[in-house]
């Protein structure tokens, strides 16, 4: 039952993504992208991942606010870009080749929640008594993999540094 709900959401997500690509108005395109993100967060909830669903919702809200703010304040509202035939045909051929190549790999994917890897089994069995954190996601990202989180924080710092430096107050000529 859960799989059918997830597949329904995936179909709607693909439709919304196509609408975001094909619409001429930038604002409706951004709203379609937001629909994709919110449906993705519902899919995460059905996959029993509330942590990532919360992060998806809040980041989606923030990026939507920033994107709407950016597009509404600009003069550029619509895009006139005609799509000619050759890139479309190329995309269809590429999708077909990808489907043929990935068919076997997709067939071999394990079901959701079974065939856990050994590391994941270790985390689930020993994670609570080794870290004391009831939320096993926190235990993994801030105890077992704290070094990765340090790198992630560094990436965030660098990205914000770049944005602030590029858009700094006194632009040099």
């Amino acid at each position, binding site marked *: 039952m859960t799989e059918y709900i997830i597949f329904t959401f995936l179909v709607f997500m693909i439709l919304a993504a196509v609408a975001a690509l094909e619409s001429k108005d930038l604002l409706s395109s951004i709203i379609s992208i937001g629909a994709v993100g919110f449906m993705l967060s519902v899919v995460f909830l059905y996959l029993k991942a*509330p*942590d990532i*669903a*919360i*992060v998806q919702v*809040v*980041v989606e*809200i*923030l990026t939507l*606010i*920033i994107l709407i*703010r*950016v597009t509404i*304040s*600009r*003069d550029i509202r619509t895009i006139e870009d005609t799509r000619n035939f050759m890139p479309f045909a190329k995309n269809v051929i590429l999708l077909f080749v990808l489907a043929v190549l990935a068919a076997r790999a997709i067939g071999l994917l394990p079901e959701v929640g079974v065939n856990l890897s050994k590391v994941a089994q270790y985390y689930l069995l020993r994670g*609570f008594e080794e*870290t*004391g*954190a*009831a*939320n096993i*996601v*926190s*235990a993994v*990202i*801030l*105890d077992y993999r*704290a*070094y990765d*989180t*340090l790198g992630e*924080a*560094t990436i*965030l*710092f660098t990205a*914000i540094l770049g*944005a*602030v430096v590029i*858009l700094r*107050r006194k*632009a040099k000529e």
Partner: protein
Amino acid sequence: MKLSEAKSASGGSKEKNGMSEIVKTVCNWIAGFIFLFGCYITAYGHLTPGGGFAGGVILAASFILIVLSFGKDKISPLLPRKRAEMIEAAGGLIFIFSVSTAIYAGASFCGNFIFKKWSCANFKLLSAGFIPLLNIAIALKVMAGLFLVFFVLSITRVILEGEKLKMVKEE
């Protein structure tokens, strides 16, 4: 509350930026609760779903709500740009400090030395060693960082001048 003081300080003059009075009133009530919810998500990150990143984004959203509804000059007594930069650096420093103190406390780098030495009761707010501390550090960092990005983007305008796009500042 600081926000209402800042509002009443310049409330006499009819300002043109910001949204209508209804939006301002609702945002004045709501922003504090959003901030509180972000604090909750951050502080209980090791017990319930959530954590530093999600909590930090919610905290940043509460400030962005104030910027959107009241305009840019209302945010400067609450979180000016210099203070946001300092908060972001402080979050990163707290993270690095608590992670590298583990070496001097006898654990490995990034080892959870507080839990190993003083293990306290489970399922409490102060449990799980330094995981809540790292959550708070990440929340501070993400809050200040995303607010800075939004603020810097919102004071920049791109105008079309002849053939070229030109960036101007609105202060």
